């Protein structure tokens, strides 16, 4: 680890190739540069948020070779050769939201949005590993991430909904923009199925 050993001495740096969301970023960083900081400041991918810098809150979670990792607990130099996915890389190739993003939006699973990227990456990997989580497993899936706004109620709903969407079990709920117009016929079914939490079914119109 490079130290600030003497006044006037520049810190030793390393050239690192980071593969993030399918794009190669050549960055030059000191050995101590956290992956979270490199993603945010060197790669300009500020969707990864830093909440505690000691690995507890999970806000900075990214996928490293598909597995959720706290990017504040990893040095950027150790990420060379890995495929990294940040929240910016979760959307589908056509730009539409992935099932987890859709579900968090639909279920009001976020308020201030600061912890959200860590939840989205965690759950994206989680439902890939376990496409049919039970309610308990859905809670367990997000049990390592802190959120101060939502009280987690709608986050757990969003995990279950994301798994549903990913499995294609039920069609998307109505979007407020009025897109997905072709799904309107099926929307009624969705609402009936989710009668117990009418507050999350979106635009009432």
């Amino acid at each position, binding site marked *: 680890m490079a130290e600030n050993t003497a006044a006037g001495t520049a810190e030793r740096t390393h050239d690192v190739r980071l593969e993030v969301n399918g794009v190669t970023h050549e960055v030059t960083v000191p050995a101590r540069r956290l992956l979270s900081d490199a993603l945010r400041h060197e790669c300009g991918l500020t969707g990864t948020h830093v909440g505690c810098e000691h690995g*507890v*809150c999970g806000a900075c979670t990214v996928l490293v070779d598909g597995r959720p990792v706290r990017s504040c607990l990893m040095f950027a130099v150790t990420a060379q050769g890995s495929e990294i996915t940040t929240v910016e890389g979760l*959307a589908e190739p056509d730009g539409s939201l992935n099932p987890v993003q859709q579900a968090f939006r639909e279920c009001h699973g976020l308020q*201030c949005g600061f912890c959200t990227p860590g939840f989205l990456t965690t759950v994206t990997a989680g439902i890939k590993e376990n496409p049919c989580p039970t309610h308990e497993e859905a809670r367990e899936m997000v049990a390592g991430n802190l959120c101060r706004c939502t009280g987690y109620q709608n986050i757990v709903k969003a995990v279950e909904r994301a798994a549903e969407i990913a499995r294609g079990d039920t069609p998307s709920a109505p979007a407020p923009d009025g897109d997905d117009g072709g799904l309107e016929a099926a929307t009624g079914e969705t609402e009936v199925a989710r009668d117990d939490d009418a507050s999350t079914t979106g635009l009432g119109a």
Partner: protein
Amino acid sequence: MTTKLMGEAVQRVEDDRLVRGGGQYVDDIDLDALHIAVLRSPHAHARIISIDVDPVLDIEGVHAVWTYDDLEGAMAEPLPLLIPHPTLTHGRTQYALARDEVNYVGEAIAMVVADDRYLAEDAVAQIAVEYELLPAVVGVEAARAAENLVHDDVPGNIAARSEQSNGDAEAAIKAAPHTLSLDLDIERSACMPMEGRGVTARWDTANGRLQVWTSTQTSTGVRAAVAAKLGLDLLQVDVITPDVGGGFGVKINHPWPEELLVSLAAQRLGRPVKFTEDRREHFISSAHERAQLHHVDVGFDDEGRLLGLDVRFWHDHGAYTPYGLIVPINASTQLVGPYKTGPYRVTFDSLYTNTVIVTPYRGAGRPQGCFVMERTMDAIAAYLGKDRADVREVNLIQPDEFPYDHGLVFQDGRETIYDSGDFPTMLQKIKALVGWDDFESYRAEMAAQGRRVGIGLAAYVEGTGAGPYEGAHVNIESSGKVKVATGLTSQGQGHQTAFAQIVADELGVPFEDVEITTGDTRRMAYAVGTFASRAAVMSGSAIHLAAKKAKEKALRIASDALEADPEDLQIVDGVVSVKGSPGTSINLGTVAVLSNPLRYAFDEASKAATQFSVGDATKPPVAEGDEPGLEGKDFYSPTRSTFASGMHAVIVETDPDTAEITILKYAVVHDCGTVINPMIVEGQIHGGVAQGIGGALYEKMAYDESGQLLNASFMDFLMPYVTEVPDAIDVDHLETPSPLNPLGIKGAGEAGVIPGSAAIAAAIEDAEGLPITAMPISPSELFELRAQHAVAATTPEEN
């Protein structure tokens, strides 16, 4: 599609951006800025003998290092005392950088500006400070004993002593058939937003302007503070609040030292400069709240009806009082809850300690007040052998007694007059929701399995929407799009959505065409801030009024263009038409063109406008008293706060062996007047309840006697994960609209947290059969209480 959106669970417009990682929080704003790091006091109380910054000066990448001696003029004065109060006789605030004394671990002493945060922190570590250690005053009891003083010139450590009464409580209690005395404690917690504080500033040398982005709950407040401290004209300073990663109160205090230092550094160095607080800094240099000790004397009759209430409490204010007495005043006035207390006297001392400052945290004194009142209700019920809900019922203010004047002065300096509510119905609802009347059979059923359960209930009333005012500006563009600005800030409450619902309803425009901007002084320079559950009440009302003005103007111009009476016009989906003759119509965007008698036409709306003729050719194009543009601007300034209310009930299980406490059921009945968006309101309640549970069972700032905060990390300060929050929070609504504002809104932001400790303490007490007088409570503390209680039970009458 113009159905009414008020009251609909409209999905949030904020979310598409946020789930894509497209949020712009203050640290995300890329200005290629220099970073600051702050040297913070490692001691709770010390005199600064000397500071040696020489080792830092030559470090490559370091641009500046400042101590107090580098500050001049207003910057060298103490930070402002934002909210003075006549009883705050000994208010004290810190300097942006400590002058000669530090009063808490974490107080800012020196600042380094460097190429990046890593280098800045390295440099800070090289600064050598010589201290003379002074004895630290930690905790209310030490402050009250005053064997040592926090500030030499503040006798007894008493910042303020305040008393209010609405009658002769002492005499009333003396005359009462029954009396009780209680001592009740609440510990320190903190807001702990996931995003800490942060500020970025840029000085525009060419234009002599300062732009500041800060994670605040008041952009106008920061703007005024920065301008005053830097000696700039207000119009030279823009303050922009970008996305904010949670606030919960801590970001209403301002200016933080770093907001001033970063602004000054940007100006002096001519380079953008930023500060991003790390988590440890947030623990030791932002703000905490809640710690108070209380003594209650109460008199009551055979039914448990209150005849007199006398409360004395001691408030731990930390090292300084920048935010005045808002927290203890809230605690003292909101303590009365939904009850008729009889003569009530409350006296508090606000005490200095050598710990982090205390400023409002969601609830802001109300959780403590609620805890005191509700514990008192439970004690009365226990004393009389009555049902706890019944004792509450006989004390409730009745629906026909509004407006109800408590004869107390609220935190906004106005009377504590409840505007509306229906507390008896609320009590019935909460009992039904939690299964109050069936609980004894449940208890027996569980007992048969060797399980121990208890039930508790707590009620609160919350003054929301405090003045003085908020404003709004509504601008209908020639595209038909509606751009709205209000000055208070957003921290995740979904303002962009809820306010757009109000505008869409009032103007008759598609929801998607409305865009709301908050917290940007360039768009709305007059604003107060987001606190006291006031955003929906204040800005919601202002936006409604401003939209109404824009609509009136639109109809006036349209009536001229369409040659129809304004009374006969309607606006549906952004089109003004004559009722019953939809063919006779004009788009709002076209009306916007007509409102602005320009010579030049650029867009389709302008071309469309040429078919209409408005105005009188013999008069000036802009008539007297009129303005160009299709805009509306208005302010909402209420006489006093509106009072929301709620009741929570909780069922807990306590493990007979380990004393682990588990919440089995959590029920909420909530009245925030007219609901704009029930999805958002429920989200606010969920989040508040989780914070209430954290405050009741897990969160506590653990200071040692030397004033070191021992648990200043997320590893050690136990904030609830999903595993600590019940699987379901049952919510029922009651809507008694406020008569004080045009939409009938009451605030909803803080409510969820208020009765948490009170309700959970009651449930634990019910499960355990021993009094719970201090919160939070951990399993080990409960275990200890059981042991003490067992000892007391085996040695009766001896103490």
